[in-house]
């Protein structure tokens, strides 16, 4: 059955009180993560990273180097996991696919005229199909924020559903670009639209707009995922992206996921960090748990 925009489903729980959200988020940030819990948390964070390069100046060489890093985060520390995926532009998907070979690291590609999404649906669909054909396991699409803010929710819904169809077997992450949605109420509505239209993951940001993945925004999206799960029993993944560059902030995010959605979401099947510089800070913290000392950033590779 073809899905269509249903206002009663989407707007049922769209009132969000920003002050209350800030208070709740502050509580997660007072959790104290120590010793074994910290070490395990840091390893989980590494395994949830989508190592990302999304620049006009990306080259095959840059992408190949990043793909190596994705599988060899810090070989002096034995037993480290790989990251979850690398995230690139469609033109770099084949390079990444080849560089990763049989590795468990997935290839994610942005699409739909990323980052602005200012193009026709036809082009967005062919953009998506191209990335999938090139070997992308996951598609990170952007929603049409202009139409969303103009109140054309049906348009946004249909577009997501069409891209989902174009994805085939690839998992779809829907980027809301919350920095352009202005209010948490809008973040909630956009989350519900994306989830009901077929998103496998909802994602905060492109990384090109500030503010990006604030904990307030991630909290609001996690609550949408929780409500959908409580109603349907179906799990939806979450990916905060942009602005999470420290291990501490990443652990606070994990605390939030654990306390809202439970431990079953604590795997890279259901939770990701979109980040480029987070991995090295986590590695630095991990090394510190072993040696008790912080090493210079020069001891961690920057591919």
């Amino acid at each position, binding site marked *: 059955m073809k899905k269509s925009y249903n206002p009663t489903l989407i707007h049922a*729980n769209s*009132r*969000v*009180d920003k*002050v*209350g*959200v800030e*208070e*709740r988020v502050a509580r997660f940030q*007072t*959790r*104290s*993560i*120590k*010793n*074994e*819990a*910290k070490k*395990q*948390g840091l*390893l*989980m964070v590494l*395994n949830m990273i989508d190592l990302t390069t999304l620049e006009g100046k990306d080259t095959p060489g840059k992408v190949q180097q990043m793909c190596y890093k994705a599988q060899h985060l810090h070989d002096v520390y034995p037993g480290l*996991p*790989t990251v*979850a995926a690398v995230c690139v532009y469609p033109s770099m998907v084949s390079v990444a696919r080849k560089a990763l070979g049989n590795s*468990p690291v997935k290839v994610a590609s942005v699409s739909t005229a990323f980052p602005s999404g200012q193009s026709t649906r036809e082009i967005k669909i062919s953009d998506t199909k191209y990335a999938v054909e090139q070997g992308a396991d996951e598609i990170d699409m952007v929603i049409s924020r202009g139409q969303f803010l103009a109140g054309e929710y049906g348009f946004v819904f249909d577009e997501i559903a069409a891209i989902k169809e174009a994805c085939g077997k690839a*998992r779809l992450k829907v980027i809301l670009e919350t920095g352009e949605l202005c209010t948490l109420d809008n973040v909630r509505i956009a989350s519900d639209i994306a989830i009901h239209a077929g998103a*496998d993951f909802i994602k905060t940001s492109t990384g090109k707009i500030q503010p990006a993945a604030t904990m307030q925004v991630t909290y609001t999206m996690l*609550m949408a995922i929780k409500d959908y799960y*409580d109603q349907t029993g179906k799990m939806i993944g979450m990916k905060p992206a942009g602005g999470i560059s420290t291990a501490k902030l990443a652990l606070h995010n*994990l605390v939030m996921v*654990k*306390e*809202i959605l439970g*431990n*079953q979401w*604590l*795997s*890279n*099947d*259901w939770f990701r960090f979109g980040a480029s510089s987070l991995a090295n800070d986590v590695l630095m913290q991990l090394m510190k748990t072993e040696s008790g000392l912080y090493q210079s950033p020069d001891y961690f590779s920057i591919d």
Partner: protein
Amino acid sequence: MAKKNPTQMQTDWTYAPAPESTSHIRLEKKYQLFINNEWVEPSSKKYFPSINPATEETLAEIAWANEADVDRAVKSARKAYKEVWSKMSGIERGKYIFRIARMMQERAREFAVIESLDCGKPIRESRDVDVPLACNHFFYYAGWADKLEYAFPHKIPEALGVAGQIIPWNFPLLMAAWKIAPALAAGNTVVLKPAETTSLTALKLAEIIKDSGLPAGVVNIVTGFGDTGAAIVNHHDVDKIAFTGSTHVGKIIQRAVVGTHKKTTLELGGKSANIILDDAPIDQAVEGIINGIFFNQGHVCCAGSRLFVQENVADLVIKKLKSRMESLYVGDPLDKNTDIGAINSKEQLDTINKYIKIGKAEGAEIYQSECSIPSRGYFCKPTIFTGVSQSHVIAQEEIFGPVLTIQTFRTIDEVIQKANNTPYGLAAGVWTDKGSRIFNLTTKLRAGVVWANTYNKFDPVSPFGGYKESGFGREGGLHGLSAYLK
């Protein structure tokens, strides 16, 4: 369903214990009475233990003041009032109060740990709420000390004299600050009695008061039980009684001061309504319910212990509430991740359990979170009752524990009527997205404090106090200051 990830990691993530260190605190084995800036033995020669409610271990022995001791304290306060404090300029009084505030801040961590040890409240709360707020009360009132004539224009503000102050066990240091700071700023001297289960932070405050160089006798701290409190209330040379505690004791005090010159403020019990309307931001309202009833194990006089939910969202709210209760950590008060600590005393735990039993017998449906609680110490699981009506005892009497009663309503008029249908009137909460509904309810709810889209927010600037059997007089803000002036 996603492909099985070959690098699948363990997802069972639990927080390691994160206990706050106790190595930096210093507790005496035995505490004497603090009279005239000296530690004096009680003439009764009697001492009683202060128990850590999380471990049932004795923390220290506390002096038990009798009538003779109270008389000594009042005499010392009277002498200090007559000879020093009433003659001192406001600006000089203010300097002392500022100094006490700063010294408290410097030792904030020590205060927080001792408060959690003695009282059972989670370190997160004593560290982030009790101690900073207590310091802020001293800072706030210190600023008024030399500006009384501006605070009360067209009046000549004059201190009352000796204030007798009796405080409860739920926020020991904070309540001491609520009482002492405005009294001193207004130019009074003080005889303060902490609750018998939680004397330690008041005695630590006495150490600071001594170190601050505050003139001898301006603040006297006498520890003990109800008889000690009665000796203060009945002392002929006390000009003012400020009491925070149960309505039962409040009534006894009220009877005792009838016909005397003593001014009185009473801040008593409550059974406050927390009202969720159907257009409320539901997830934040659920947080507000949690904060309203489980903050400080529900040992809060203004706790939102009666929840009213509009019928069309009741199922959703209760479902979300139950789910949220499961993510509360109950246990060691000193662990930084603990949300709900220990019940203050065995006596209080028995009271709470008595009401839980009554609730079940009345036919209300009980739900308790599935958390495990420590085998030693006094603990109670977060508890809610659904299917409650106004006629239930558990909806009428103050339980003073982590126990919530839930009722539903259909119309705004109905909920206003039910919310006001109680002998108490301390606080209320209203949750709605509509400003007009907030103003409609806040003008009609007969409660001293009404919070909109939040709950349990305190500030030294904001007055606090009750209607009806919740007491009279206000504490905090200018209102709190005027209660210590002629």
